[in-house]
């Protein structure tokens, strides 16, 4: 449940950001990031629709490699519910 995925910020509008990862766009809340400077192009770790921490582009790429592996494992499981 504490799983977080890295996403790239595409655009910011108030506390909401359009974020992208692997070609999929999502609306992400930046409400928890009020004490962090963020701009389009930055990368954030996203947990249940909220950015919880800023990360570097290189670290985002590494985290994605891990996440891909985990998704494969999860997909392979019988009856695992995927949100």
């Amino acid at each position, binding site marked *: 449940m*504490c799983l977080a995925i890295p996403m790239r910020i595409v655009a910011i509008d108030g506390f909401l950001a359009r974020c992208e990862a692997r070609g999929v766009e999502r609306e992400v809340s930046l409400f928890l990031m009020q004490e962090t400077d963020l701009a389009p192009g930055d990368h954030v770790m996203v947990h249940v629709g*909220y950015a*919880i921490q800023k990360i570097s582009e290189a670290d985002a790429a590494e985290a994605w490699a891990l996440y891909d592996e985990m998704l494969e494992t999860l997909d392979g499981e019988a009856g695992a519910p995927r949100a």
Partner: protein
Amino acid sequence: MPRRSAQAWLDALHALPPPPRFRIMNVCGGHERAISRAGLRSLMPAGIELIPGPGCPVCVCPEEDIHQAIQLALHEEVILVAFGDMLRVPVNVPRSRPRSLEAARAAGADVRPIASPRDALRMARAEPDREVVFFAAGFETTMAPVAAMVLEGLPNNLSLLLSGRRTWPAVAMLLETGETAFDALVAPGHVSAVMGPEEWDFVATDHGLPVAVAGFESASLLAAFHAVLRQRSAGAARRENTYPEVVRPGGNPGARRCLETAFEIVDGNWRGIGTIPESGYALRPAFAAHDARRRFPEHAAPDRRRAGEMPAGCDCARVVLGRIYPDQCRLYGRACQPRHPVGPCMVSDEGACRIWWSSGVRQTEVANAEKTPSTL
């Protein structure tokens, strides 16, 4: 700084003097999943044991809270929303009554799984004539987004049944009571990303045990195992951090402020464990109007506390405390499998039983049958 590979950390780990017995506990379902999936247990030097501890918020969610959620869901006007994991967790009631939120849904209740607090907001706005109750369980990482949702302003028809828990008080309880014997701790990465790694300093300073915050890659976990074993060899204990790319000193101050503003800290009941001081979150009085426990007081059932332990025959309580490994439960893989789970540890994606089963661990081999983690 180029990072060392998992193999390099593994080699370094094997190069350290082997301990007679060194039990490293983790308190995060994500860690346990990464360990099991990569088969790290079998790669450890002799003597090192990796124990899954209280790392699953769904598993320790009080039975009386789930019971209350089911009763609320059975209301005509209520839409009950919860993170998907919660839907199949069983309560201890006769078979004639709904034993889970999923069963309540089958009986006609409007129960909907959500992936984000923002889904709850959207549903409440879309159906202003219905009462939306968000049954929110989770550790700090998840409760921070819930706090953000509260602070951004809730529609009148949205209330919260809060079952959030803090992780460090559970570890403090284990250490203070000696409930479970372990020699070092690997602390949760994303909890620390929000709260700051300093929350775990007490493990070293107050209890003299090595502790390292870790991420979810094998390299980060192995670096953490290496860190705590190296400390042990050196006879020192301090808190290290092998996930610095996400875990910064002080964590995320904006998120911590949200948690503080929305919630107060209260004692929390943990299913199968009991009350742990200062381990729970409650809405501050300013948001009392959105507290589902106040809005629907008729469903509070304090008398369920005693009835509300783990299901009969289920050893989840000892699994969660790290006192036994999942495959040492007599029902593991027999009566209890993901398709027909008996206890919450086999339901949740973060439950140790579910993770072990998914990673291919079948019934106990006789060899490790008597080697429980808490054997002294």
